[in-house]
């Protein structure tokens, strides 16, 4: 996956050397490589297949959420409701799991997507700012999850084997959540680069006015984008519920900020129109590796972990910004 975050001229051909050059100029990739080298040198357990699979699996749910967030941010919007939608989907899936896997998965995904559509309609048609709409949805969807479950976790029925498989199954050595993650990013990347819908996200993020005047059905695309973000958050929630064996109304608290951080660290600009799926995956993994290193070290106090995370986030974003600016000035 190339880092589409760079102002590369889309559609032009990449030579290997150029791709490498671009990659190295992306702050996130450099930081990820550095963190991995550091980890491998310091901890015997870091560069083991077991640990690599761990990191990938642990971050697959956030990865799905962050992919949806990437789409939204590319249009110049933001979706603060993803954490709550994730909880709603997990809870609904768990509640429906007694009726079988299919109703559970469809119900969870459908509910999250529906709430995403509500976001989209309020943003595109009623014209309320995305920050406000999704902030309200963050609150309201959490309320929904809490009310639906009487504030208790809901067990995933053991009969819903396909559902459980989503969270705990394996394809050869690859855990299913990881497979889903890879698949989702492949589709997302292709979609952004090679489908009209994907290109329109960039267009709207670049200038909504221009896109509208050039005849794009901006409202429909925006609604679809928030629906997609809702659905991906929902998928994340279902995988999480399946993995934990329970739908939790408090799951995903604060994930919106983690997802935004991952998207931004990857190099997608919050102003919209620039960035891509590949870079978000790098961002997710980078933040995941940091947590993994904290755990392997095991003796840093939780508060110093917070401090380090914040400083690290700033550092990457500053470097990222400089590189990007230098690049656009060339």
């Amino acid at each position, binding site marked *: 996956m190339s880092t589409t975050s760079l102002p590369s001229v889309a559609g032009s051909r990449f030579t290997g050397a150029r791709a490498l050059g671009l990659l190295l100029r992306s702050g996130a990739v450099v930081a990820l490589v550095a963190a991995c080298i550091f980890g491998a040198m*310091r*901890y*015997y*357990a870091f560069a*083991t297949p*077991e*640990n690599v699979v*761990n990191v990938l*699996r*642990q971050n697959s*749910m956030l990865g799905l959420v962050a992919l949806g967030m990437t789409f939204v941010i590319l249009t110049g919007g933001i979706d603060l409701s993803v954490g709550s939608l994730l909880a709603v989907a997990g809870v609904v899936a768990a509640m429906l799991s007694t009726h079988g896997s299919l109703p559970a998965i469809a119900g969870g995904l459908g509910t999250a997507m529906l709430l995403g559509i509500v976001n989209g309609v309020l943003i595109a048609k009623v014209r309320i700012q995305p920050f406000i709409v999704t902030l309200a949805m963050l609150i309201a969807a959490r309320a929904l999850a*809490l009310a639906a*479950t009487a*504030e*208790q*976790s*809901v*067990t995933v029925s053991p009969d819903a084997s396909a559902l459980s498989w989503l*969270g*705990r199954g394996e394809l050869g050595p690859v855990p299913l959540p990881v497979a889903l993650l890879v698949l989702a990013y492949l589709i997302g990347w292709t979609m952004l680069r090679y489908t009209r819908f994907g290109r329109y996200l960039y267009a709207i993020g670049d200038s909504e006015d221009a896109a509208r005047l050039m005849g794009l059905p901006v409202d429909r695309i925006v609604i679809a984008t928030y629906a997609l973000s809702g659905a991906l958050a929902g998928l994340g929630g279902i995988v*999480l519920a399946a*993995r*934990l*064996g*329970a739908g*939790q*109304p*408090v*799951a*995903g*608290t*604060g994930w919106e900020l983690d997802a935004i951080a991952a998207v931004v660290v990857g190099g997608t600009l919050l102003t919209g129109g620039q960035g891509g799926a590949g870079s978000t995956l790098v961002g997710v993994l980078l933040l995941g590796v940091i*947590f*993994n290193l*904290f*755990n*392997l*070290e*095991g*003796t840093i106090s*939780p*508060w110093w*972990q917070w401090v380090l995370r914040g400083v690290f986030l700033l550092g990457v974003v500053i470097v990222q910004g400089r590189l990007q600016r230098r690049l656009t000035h060339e």
Partner: protein
Amino acid sequence: ARKDAGAYVVGFSQMESDNPWRLAETKSLRDEAGKRRIQLVVTDAQGQTAKQVSDVEDLIARHVDLILLAPREYQGLAPALQAAKAAKIPVILVDREAAGTPGVDYVTLLASNFVEQGRRAGEWLAAQTNGKANIVELSGTPGASVAADRAKGFRDAIAKYPDMKIVASQTGNFSRATAQGVMQNIVQSLGKQITAVYAHNDEMALGAIQALAAGGLKPGHDVRVLSIDGERAALEAIDRGELGATVESNPRFGPLAFDTIDKLRKGEKLPPKILITDRFFDRDNAKQFIAEAY
């Protein structure tokens, strides 16, 4: 952080670190490990089950010899237990239960009994008020199992007394600040009707005491306040007469945990559940325990 050959390493997956009780628990384990020269690796799940599962996986990847797990919730930690089992790393649950069978999915449970804590609080109140009270309940974080357990135990205890009524139940998020604001508003609306406050933890009780005082109700006099935990500030409040009583929820799992580990290493057979003893603090004994409280 490199594994020294032969050294015994214990991993401790703490569920969160943002309140004194959890800090005291972690500290107790750290201190005891230090005393016995055992390496303790601590992770912090920041209150999220999902992160806690990841943390346990990381501990497994790090090849610790044993895992102490303070579960975020009853539900949801099954994959962590399974992974540990697959890696043949024994797990001891600390302070809360998680879904699974002792002896199969985990070795044993060093338990706090949260339902029992709520029940003891309820009984104390019933005895003090002769079974007649209008109670405001300040509950813990919505969705947290401790909150549900402490609510349940308390309700079980007062069910026998028809004149003990919960007139208001609002969440204070286990936080002093939130509870203070919420209590202020409830005082505005119910005023003198209130004769008792039951808070799911000491922090909220301390917030409620300030709100009552600000609202012109004398805590300890007009309104009996009781809570659970037994932290130092609460014992001091009991000493001042503001707080009626607090049921200890003992966070000092260190000695018990490492004694249990020793037994396990010696191959002794362990019961499925080992209860930590919770004391009860009120006017009579609070003062003498202030110094040793956390």
